């Protein structure tokens, strides 16, 4: 296996240019949504709005303004599949279409997916959706095809500020720690890493530097594996089965007294 590879996205230097979105769409040949008809969100410069089967990168525009709008700031964050070390989508996929690659990334094989959509609800981050063209679940592949050819993913290659950095996880974590230290030294005490260590789902191979709570960026504060409910859910259902069985025996059993 090659070394684990991933993204480190430093949201503090994202300028919201969406070059990553465009580069992703171009390389992965993702068509425009809605037949190319422009749909504007109407309340933000963010018209992509969410990750889905046709959008594998999404630059979030988080607007934080005081009610009188005298003070405010933009939080910009290029969102993407987190390529979790413990991946909920991969765990539930009943066709085996979702695999872990030699780069420790998570890829949906479109040729095997049958569109059951279990992975969509299993993803703790809401990253996956159906691509209406293929009829299969799709998301960022961390440019698996480019990685196999020794190339860098399209989005990080296109990023003009290096907000999206690509590299080995070990190297990226070092860079991220240094950047947090630098920001804190400059007085930005809210600087924190999201998913950079193995406490969150075994580690996110695509992790982030944030300067607010994860919720502010639309990120779950405590993402979990779907299988956390497997044992308790099965035990409760089994108990239900026993109760139903007892009710059945009580009601139907042969007492030998013919009516």
């Amino acid at each position, binding site marked *: 296996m090659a070394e684990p590879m991933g993204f480190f996205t430093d949201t503090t230097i994202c300028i919201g240019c969406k070059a990553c979105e465009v580069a992703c769409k171009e390389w992965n040949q993702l068509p425009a949504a809605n037949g190319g008809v422009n749909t504007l969100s109407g309340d933000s410069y963010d018209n992509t709005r*969410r990750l*889905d089967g046709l959008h594998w990168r999404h630059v979030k525009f988080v607007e934080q303004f005081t009610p009188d709008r005298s003070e405010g700031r933009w939080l910009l964050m290029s969102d993407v599949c987190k390529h979790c070390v413990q991946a909920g989508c991969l*765990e*539930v*996929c*009943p*066709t*085996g279409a979702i695999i872990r690659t030699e780069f420790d990334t998570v890829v949906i094989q479109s*040729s*095997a*997916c*049958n*569109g*059951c*959509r*279990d992975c*969509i*609800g*299993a*993803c*703790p*981050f*809401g*990253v*996956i*959706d*159906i691509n209406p063209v293929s*009829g*299969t679940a799709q998301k960022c592949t961390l440019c698996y095809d480019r990685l196999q050819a020794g190339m860098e993913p399209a989005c990080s290659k296109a990023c003009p500020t290096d907000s999206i950095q690509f590299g080995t996880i070990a190297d990226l974590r070092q860079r991220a720690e240094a950047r947090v230290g630098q920001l804190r030294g400059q007085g930005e005490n809210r600087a924190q890493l999201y998913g950079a260590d193995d406490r969150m789902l075994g580690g996110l191979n695509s992790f982030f530097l944030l300067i607010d709570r994860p*919720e502010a960026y*639309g*990120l*779950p*504060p405590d*993402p*979990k594996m*779907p*299988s956390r*409910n*497997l044992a*308790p*859910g*099965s035990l*409760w*259902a089994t*108990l*239900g*089965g026993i*109760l*139903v*069985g007892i*009710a*059945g*025996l*009580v*009601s*139907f*059993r*042969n*007492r030998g007294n013919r009516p």
Partner: protein
Amino acid sequence: MSEVPSTLFTAAPHWRWLIVFYFFLGGIAGGAYLIAALIDLFGRPWDRPLARLGYLVAFPLTVVCGILLVVDLNRPLRFWHMLLASETLTPMIKWWSPMSVGAWALLLFGFFTLLSFVAALADDGWLRWPGLARLRPPGILGTIVVVLGGLLGFFIAGYTGVLLAVTNRPIWSDTSLIGLVFLISSASTGAAVLMLLARRRAVANAEGLHALERFDTLLLVLELLALVALVVSLGSLARLWLNTWGVLLVLGVVGVGIVAPLLLHRQARTSALAGASAAVLVLVGGFLLRVVIVLSSESV
């Protein structure tokens, strides 16, 4: 500052009406079969016509379930990818994924319901090959078929709730009790269908019908308790039901589907209409339960 629940940051898998109908009809199939199996294995010989009804219901419904699930896929022709790995053609099963296990269980349940269906037809004299009747108890072969089919019936009746829990969606994965509620409700709706058919076809004696009524009464009480526990287990997430879904849950599922049939069951011995109405309301409630559970999370 209190944390926002993490399940609210996820995306809906677009499981809508086809899935609601699958959960409902699959529940009836599993419930009807497990009741039939219980009667055949432990019940009174003169209730066997009632069990035969269960087998006659279970197989066609299971076929419909399979069709619903295939049609719901975005790539229906690839339905078999759930059973065989599409590249290697080796068996595809992940015991920790309820959908994977469920696909196999539904296939096997279809097989056993077919055997029992054929046996029921042979018992009825529709199929003139007496050997087929041995696929029903008494007798070793019939007992094996009904025990395995019955266990699968229990599984089909409840696994769908566990499948919902093994996601990261709000409501579904915020409680472990949906499987419990679905299983009880499945048995109840299965009993309701048997009650209706038994009355219509006059196959069961009064004793058999009373046993079904008694069984369903127990189940409705259990279901009510389980539903209350489910709402409590949701904690702060229960606020997601402080809207039309909650009204539908309280009035439709509990009022129409549990409380009203409980009252009507008490009069069923004297009034055939009350008995039939109770069964119909149980079916309405069982359907609405799945509507609320599935679609309320889909709409978050």
